[in-house]
């Protein structure tokens, strides 16, 4: 899977070693960020998957599972909190 041009970016800068650069993506379903490609050919990285419903990258854990966009998950979580609060319970 080619890294989308709007990927995130991570670097590790340290003494005595070249700068390590990574492209990162954020899962559209769970919000997790992961490295998809590195400047080191010795490092293998899992490219994750692609959701054809929300047309966004998903992490290896969410690949192949039901499409529940992350913002939808947040809304469900916040609605559950409101329901619990209306019942006098804490989440």
């Amino acid at each position, binding site marked *: 899977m080619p890294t989308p041009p*709007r990927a*995130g970016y*991570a*670097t*590790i*800068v*340290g003494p005595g070693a070249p700068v390590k650069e990574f492209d*990162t993506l*954020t899962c559209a379903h*769970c919000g997790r960020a992961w490295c998809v490609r590195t400047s080191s050919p010795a490092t293998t990285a899992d490219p994750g998957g692609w959701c054809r419903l929300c047309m966004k990258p998903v992490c290896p854990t969410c690949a192949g599972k039901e499409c529940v966009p992350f913002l939808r998950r947040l809304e469900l979580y916040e609605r559950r909190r409101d329901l619990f609060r209306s019942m006098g319970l804490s989440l």
Partner: protein
Amino acid sequence: MPRRYAVDGAQNAAATVTVLGLTSASTIRPGIYELLFGCGATPADQAFDMWMRRYTAAGTSTGVTPIGLDPGDPASLCSAGENHTVEPTYTTELLRFSINQQATFRWVAAPDGELIAPATASNGIGLQFYSVSGGTAECQAMFHHVE
């Protein structure tokens, strides 16, 4: 345009100890779009395994105030904490990396790829040591977030 803030924290290295936590509020969904982590202690060979995780209870910490990147913005609605005496109640992992003590780590999110916390009080995202190879060097972290 969303408001942008920076907040930093410090903590002596130890396994399962939080460096910096950013806690949401019931009116906003903060999104962390940049993370910086490094160690200002005397250089030594020590390894840190770090992870960013969600939490549902913020624990007890020394408060640090997020500073607006635009001085014209109002104060942040989030709260943040360093030097935790009671760890947050963590749930899922969001980002993980391992570095040497002498290295510096920086992560910038893809646009729309921020680490977002729910609009729920006491919920948030923290940077925690997963494991430390030895020593208790003081480390520093900085989050930039939008809300």
